[in-house]
């Protein structure tokens, strides 16, 4: 979807404000939102693509006014209700109507599940459509649902830099239409191809793009 999350190339946000490594969290509620999001993510009711899509569905004005963990908090509440872990009335009143449908992640299991992670690499049989160095054009697609193809690269021509192999396809996984693994490539674009003649003649941007996003270019 063409949401406010797709920020690459926008002007007017001001300078980047560097900060030291500590503190990791800046308010007590931020660490709880972080931990609630990660802990409920292990309950098997959604995947990482669905959780990104939940945050993206915030209206653009609200998204841009929100801090990062406010975006997470809003996405979490949406998913909890949509995926049937709580109902809308419970969310509104804060009172539990009964126990949830699945068991909580136990404290003792946290190190194990973090170490295991959620790998998204999937072996696929289909041979690579594009060899390293091949020129490709990103399709000009504007899906209404989740995609990982930023607007700024659509219609642009780049060259295949790396073949990452098969990976879960976020466009389908985000809407629970299956993992449908597809080959993923790192594609290198000249800065001038993306940003015009005022950009550096030397610089480049690399994006990870799935095979269905790409056409062969001459």
């Amino acid at each position, binding site marked *: 979807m063409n949401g406010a*999350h*797709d*920020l*690459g*190339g*926008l002007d007017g*946000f*001001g300078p*980047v*404000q*560097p*900060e*030291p*490594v500590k503190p*990791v969290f800046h*308010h*007590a*509620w931020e660490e*709880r939102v*972080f*931990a*609630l999001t*990660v*802990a*409920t993510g292990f309950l098997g009711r959604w995947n*990482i693509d669905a959780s*990104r899509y939940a945050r993206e569905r915030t209206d653009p004005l609200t998204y841009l006014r929100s801090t990062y963990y*406010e975006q997470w*908090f809003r996405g979490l509440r949406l998913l909890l209700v949509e995926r049937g872990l*709580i109902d809308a009335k419970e969310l509104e009143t804060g009172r539990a109507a*009964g*126990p*949830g449908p699945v*068991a*909580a992640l136990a*404290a003792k299991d*946290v190190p194990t599940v*973090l*170490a295991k*992670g959620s*790998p*998204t*690499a999937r072996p696929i049989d289909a041979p690579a459509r594009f060899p390293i160095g091949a020129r490709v054009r990103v399709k000009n697609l504007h899906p209404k649902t989740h995609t*990982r*193809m*930023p607007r700024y690269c659509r219609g642009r021509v780049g060259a295949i830099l790396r073949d*990452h192999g098969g*990976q879960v396809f976020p466009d389908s996984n985000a809407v629970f239409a299956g993992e449908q693994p597809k080959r993923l490539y*790192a594609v290198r674009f000249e800065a001038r191809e*993306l*940003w015009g003649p005022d*950009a*550096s003649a030397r*610089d*480049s*941007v*690399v*994006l*990870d*793009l799935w095979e269905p996003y790409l056409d062969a270019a001459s």
Partner: protein
Amino acid sequence: MAKHDHEHDHEHDHDHQDNRWSELQLRVKALESLLVDKKLVDPAALDVLIDTYENKVGPRNGARVVAKAWSDPAYRARLMTNATKAIAELGYSGRQGEDMVAVENTPRLRHMVVCTLCSCYPWPVLGLPPVWYKSAPYRARAVREPRAVLADFGVKVADDVEIRVWDSTAEVRYLVIPERPPGTEGMNEEQLADLVTRDSMIGTGDPLKPGAAQP
């Protein structure tokens, strides 16, 4: 605007922000209580998660990877061939680092990592991302004007060096291996790791010079 008015506005902003955070504190607490009541969340598990990323997993891990790559050519070769495996040799793996790629700076090529669509970041080696990495200015500008962004970090790159910006649009996580600073010959891995900053592994900073302290 007169100085007086400016100060007034500033105080007003602070009050507004304080209200915003205290309201959020209450709302987050209410959601946590509900999820605990429904036995969907174990509060002790939340504490373990917070402690893990606040105190245990952070950029010191990545600094050890970089220091080893600087010191041990065989390790560097393994890291450039299969970063996930090479990083796991040091005990760092798992969530948000399942599929790692190391990209190495050279005198002609300088890497920088961003996630324009959200906040993808290699947690096992760098911990959780800083606020600026997740915020609009960096996400909007890194791909479009990387040299201006580097200037915000006090870094100037010569015109004849390629800046290659990696937009993390998939689950592959990128770790920048900065160039080893001159004057570090004879330093051991622990001493070298002290020079490797978080920002140098994102690509927005340089390693410290020998004798300088970590920020």
